[in-house]
């Protein structure tokens, strides 16, 4: 008797459980029905209105001094709240976990650092929850973010390639350094190669992974110099490539003999240009990422520009789909204007 009751209960639970199963959505990118484009709007601005930036490696100077500083400044000007959340290490699952826990609180908008294609799903969760969501820095291919704002990395690579060809007169051995496998870096490498490989006298040695680490970049560069005494130029693609490369070039007394182009324009980079170690920088307009990104979130929520009686209902996203901020080119001729 007891057993049959237990069995009955078991099956009841099993059936209840199965019927309560809720399968995940079948595809991520494409299903764009009207339902999923609805977003939350508001008629009035309140000081409690909160815009949340979710990033990773939250205390990285590049992020703190540019992205986060501009975002905070914008929030003060607009009289709204700016929150910055995320793990202190480069830890994508932790960024996702943070993101997921903030969604239920329905902030006014999300400004998401596009660190990894793996965050697409949680971006879609936020979009499905009706929260205006802008991705900055790197685009996330599988995500349905309302907008992306960032640099064009292919362009940044192309610019470096063109400058390299110019200063080397179209001949010599060149190499590139950055984080291998990252979508934006790979686009940059491609831009660089598309230009340089048009010149048969330019020999490409290879792509090297410095994992965004100064010591590693310097070590790789030192090895490269030993292995290739006739190395003519190196292009860097992450924030620490330039300083690392420059260190080894200085130590090998090859300053000026090996040409260096790289990305980013931190004070360290600028000083190296002034000293003549680095020849050319492609800076990013990072402040624009977050300042304009946040403004777009604000505009979306407050219907600054409306294309219909009710954009949220009509399935119109009233902000640009994609903004490319463009690059800043720096060399010895204009470097003084950037040094504070």
């Amino acid at each position, binding site marked *: 008797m007891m057993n049959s009751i237990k069995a009955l209960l078991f099956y009841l639970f099993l059936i209840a*459980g199965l019927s*309560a199963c809720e399968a995940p959505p079948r595809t991520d990118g494409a299903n764009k029905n009207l339902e999923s484009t609805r977003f939350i709007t508001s008629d009035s601005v309140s000081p409690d209105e909160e815009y949340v930036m979710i990033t990773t490696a*939250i205390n990285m100077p590049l992020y703190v001094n540019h992205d986060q500083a501009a975002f905070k400044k914008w929030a003060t000007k607009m009289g709204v709240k700016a929150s910055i959340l995320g793990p202190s290490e480069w830890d994508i699952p932790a960024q996702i976990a943070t993101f997921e826990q903030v*969604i239920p609180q329905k902030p006014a908008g999300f400004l998401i650092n596009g660190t*990894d294609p793996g965050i697409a799903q949680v971006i879609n969760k936020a979009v499905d929850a009706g929260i205006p969501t802008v991705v900055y820095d790197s685009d996330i291919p599988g995500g349905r973010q309302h907008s992306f704002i960032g640099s064009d990395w292919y362009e940044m690579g192309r610019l470096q390639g063109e400058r390299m060809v110019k200063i080397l007169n179209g001949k010599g051995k060149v190499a590139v350094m950055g984080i291998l496998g990252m*979508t934006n870096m790979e686009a940059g490498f491609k831009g660089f190669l598309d230009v340089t490989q048009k010149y048969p006298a330019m020999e490409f040695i290879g792509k090297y992974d410095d994992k965004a680490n100064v010591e590693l970049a310097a070590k790789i560069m030192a090895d490269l110099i030993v292995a290739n005494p006739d190395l003519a130029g190196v292009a860097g693609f992450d924030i620490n490539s330039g300083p690392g490369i420059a260190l080894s070039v200085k130590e090998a007394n090859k300053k000026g003999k090996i040409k260096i182009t790289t990305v980013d324009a931190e004070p360290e980079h600028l000083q190296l240009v002034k000293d003549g170690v680095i020849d050319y920088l492609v800076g990013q307009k990072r402040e624009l990422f977050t300042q304009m990104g946040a403004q777009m979130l604000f505009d979306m929520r407050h219907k600054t520009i409306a294309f219909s009686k009710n954009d949220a209902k009509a399935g119109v996203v009233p902000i640009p789909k994609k903004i490319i901020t463009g690059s800043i080119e720096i060399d010895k001729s204009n470097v003084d204007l950037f040094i504070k």
Partner: protein
Amino acid sequence: MIRDRIVTLSATILLLCIVMSFLYPSQFPTVENFSQIMLNLSIDTIVAVGMMLLMISGVFDLSVGSIVAFSGGLAGYLMYYHDVNFLVAIAAALSGSLLIGFINGFLITKIGINPMIQTLAMMGVVRGFALMLSGAGIQNFPYEYNYIGQVKILGLQSPVWYMFAIVLIFSYLFKNIAFFRRYYFIGSNEKAAHLSGIEVEKMKLWGFVIVGLLAGIAGVLLSSRLGAALSTSGKGLELRVITAVILGGASLSGGQGKIFGAFLGAAFMGIVGNILILSRVSGYWQEIILGIILILAVGIDQLIQKKK
């Protein structure tokens, strides 16, 4: 003392929840928030169950975080680059993780390498393999694979159910099965355990295999729930899990702890993390606060024991 820890930890968690419900009435005590907390601690808890097993027997494993990344990476690699059926991919990922656990256990028990050194080295080796397999990350898994970690049952996402199942099963095993019971004896006095006829080495080997398997399961679930195998998966997980297990009543010298304590420890850390996010406390504070909590928990215990 173990029983005390389960009581005190439960009470602390309850107290935290009550306080937070007053501070954030519309945000904290919601079904949505709690299912999110549970989901986020499920992966850690599954690994913590294995870590608890090891720490009861007086050892620990630093390679679990890397195994989590490896397992998801291997499954993703097979499905994405070789169109392998998702079940086969999971089987491969789990057997791979099990094998890593076996290698750890074999080298520690048969060759005599110190567990900390062995698993520290393995942490690097396996992380390297994981990076090799998943590169900068793999997305676009088959729907069936994502289903495993994303289906919702009674409003809770599946990893939460897996976690409950594993905690319940292992709790039962540790209470009722002689095999698992032996770990307590090994941890409290290894020599006496040997002289009581317990095959200490063999048991430890099995311990590492079980931990490897659990980390492998966690890795599959994590990648399936994220829909992506990330190269940073499981980063710092080993220390987080050891912290949870110690909070849950384990001791570094072994012989102490209950499986349910592993869940409570992870739950406590998950709730603290959630509180910090709700109160918009910046990322690095989380680590500072968790560190302080650990020192407090263990320190207070020591003081109480000394008084006794």
